[in-house]
């Protein structure tokens, strides 16, 4: 797979948008993302994750947002409605279902708007057909996925199974651990997804309730600075306007014939989407300061995970430390692109690798197992599912039990 990208102290290519430095109708100054995050002073606020989403979107120069209620994203969707009422957004629709919402998003993005929406759990699955369509059409839409249970019996509680369904849609998939991540990833996500050599949709995932409904301290960038707008004419595919009518997209589509050129066209386009995701690394690494975070990865016992499971593991590591058991941590920030090289390097010396997850399938452990050498080192768990909380004490106990069973 790709080599890891070393870009220490480098930044993402600065915006050259014609509106850079100008003011929008709300008096915010269009500012390059590097200047927003690395030059401007940020101030701490004590907010819920839903309020954090609103504050990120306030600064994101979003054109269209489409809303549909489903717990636990409804609050964020409603709060963005308030932003529309305050004239921060050009358009705000309510959809008939998640499927319709994602279709409306596609329309707005085809037309050249920066588009944002939010969904969760069964909504993500209902919308699913649209995600590979967005990717194949190279629409850099951002969807915030506030993960919740998807299976019957019904659960509205946090569970990350739906992220597994997103892995091969052709979207970028990032996983926020905290409300702070959510704020940063939302703004930075637009910039990475819209790079001409990337230009695919992005799912910013967070664990529902654990992030959306928890009040936490978040450092926010100044309210009077906003991202430079999306430039549809930098897209790698033609923007639909009066010159390129929408009808052309599907007129006599040769890919619908069963012949060799159909297959190879389809295959090459899918490979191009995969390549676009890999190309996003060079923009993502400087903006997120790497695709993974590492703490004490020279230790023999490691926890490697993403999202809220990282938070719970940090506390578990503290508890184990008190008992003299030293454990390192790898936080995975981007699931697509998957940090193959980074994880290989960080786990090189580990003898035991634990992957705690908030889902019953253990898909992240599978991803890690398929990445590293000697993958019997990976312990698939601990798991909770259906929205159960994962107390740090439980993670600590499972780590201790496994180490004991393997004679340590």
């Amino acid at each position, binding site marked *: 797979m790709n080599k890891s990208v070393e870009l220490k102290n480098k930044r993402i290519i600065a915006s050259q948008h014609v509106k850079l430095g100008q003011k929008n109708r709300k008096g915010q100054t269009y500012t390059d993302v590097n200047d927003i995050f690395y030059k401007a002073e940020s101030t701490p606020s004590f907010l*819920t994750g839903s309020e954090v989403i609103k504050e990120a979107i306030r600064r994101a120069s979003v054109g269209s947002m489409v809303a549909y209620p489903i717990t636990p994203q409804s*609050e964020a969707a409603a709060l963005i409605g308030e932003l529309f009422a305050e004239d921060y957004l050009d358009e705000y629709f309510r959809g008939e279902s998640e499927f319709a919402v994602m279709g409306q998003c596609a329309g707005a993005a085809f037309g050249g708007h920066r588009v944002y929406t939010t969904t969760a759990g069964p909504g993500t699955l209902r919308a699913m057909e649209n995600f590979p369509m967005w990717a194949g059409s190279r629409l850099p839409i951002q969807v915030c996925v506030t993960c919740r249970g998807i299976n019957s019996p019904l659960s509205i*509680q*946090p569970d990350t199974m739906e992220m597994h369904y997103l892995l091969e849609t052709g979207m970028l998939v990032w996983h926020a651990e905290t409300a702070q991540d959510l704020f940063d990833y939302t703004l930075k996500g637009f910039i990475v997804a819209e790079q001409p050599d990337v230009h695919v949709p992005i799912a910013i995932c967070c664990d529902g*309730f654990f992030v959306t409904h*928890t*009040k936490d*301290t978040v450092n926010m960038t100044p309210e009077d600075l906003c991202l430079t707008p999306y430039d549809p004419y930098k897209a790698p595919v033609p923007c639909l306007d009066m010159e390129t009518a929408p009808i052309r997209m599907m007129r006599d589509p040769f890919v619908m014939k069963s012949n060799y050129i159909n297959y190879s066209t389809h295959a090459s386009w899918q490979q191009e989407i995969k390549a676009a995701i890999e190309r996003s690394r060079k923009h993502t690494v400087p903006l997120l300061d790497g695709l993974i975070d590492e703490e004490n990865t020279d230790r023999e016992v490691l926890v490697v995970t993403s999202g809220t499971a990282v938070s719970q593991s940090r506390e578990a590591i503290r508890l184990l430390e008190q008992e003299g058991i030293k454990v390192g941590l790898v936080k995975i920030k981007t699931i697509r692109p998957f940090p193959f090289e980074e994880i290989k390097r960080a786990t090189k010396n580990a003898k035991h690798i634990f992957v705690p997850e908030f889902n019953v399938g253990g898909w992240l452990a599978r991803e890690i197992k398929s990445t590293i050498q000697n993958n019997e080192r990976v312990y698939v768990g601990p798991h909770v599912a259906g929205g159960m*909380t*994962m107390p740090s004490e439980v993670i600590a106990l499972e780590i201790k039990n496994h180490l004991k069973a393997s004679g340590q």
Partner: protein
Amino acid sequence: MSRMNIRISGLGGQGAVTAAHLLAMAANRDGKFSISNPFFGAEKRMAPAESYCRVGSERIYDRGELVYPDVIMVFHPQVITMQKSYTAPFYSGIQENGLIIINTPSDLLTEEDRKRLEDLNVNVFNHDATKLALEIGKTELSTNMAMIGACAGVTKIVSLKALEGALQERFGKKFVASGGTASLDEAIKKKYKKKNDLLKANMDCITESYTLSEGWAEKQENMKLVSV
């Protein structure tokens, strides 16, 4: 590193979630680290409702349901008498040297409960918060304020000054936690002609409850609760 984990069990409509938010906001104002969240689910009036507040000397990552609390606050007797609680018994998971504050005019514990809690050196404070709310706040909706005051008075986890600041922040300006919470906030605001009357009545309720509880705590000889 020190940490105090507070679990609040109440009934829908009593303001258990607001109480956790206020405590966390106040702790944040006092320069401590804090995190608060509700029990994740659909709430309705008089059905079980739960919220959590974690306060610490270092950054807190732990979130979600609090399984091992140091402090449990029971906002309504029905949490115990009718088992309107997400855990059974309501004090499940309480840590050694913990504290339980129950809003009740009379003792509700069974002999078995008492024995188990004594073995863990848990202090139980029966505190008639609703009576205080009716007398000072002039509405039983101030019960959560009286309970916050009691928590602060016994544990000293937040200062009265910080609580007043948090109260101003929460009710003094537009605040949307959720549709349901927003309409509850509006309902209570309508009970008062002026917002300032509401803020003052609530703060008086907190202060009186704080003083009473402080007095109770001073008399407890076996109190070994964690402090932050």
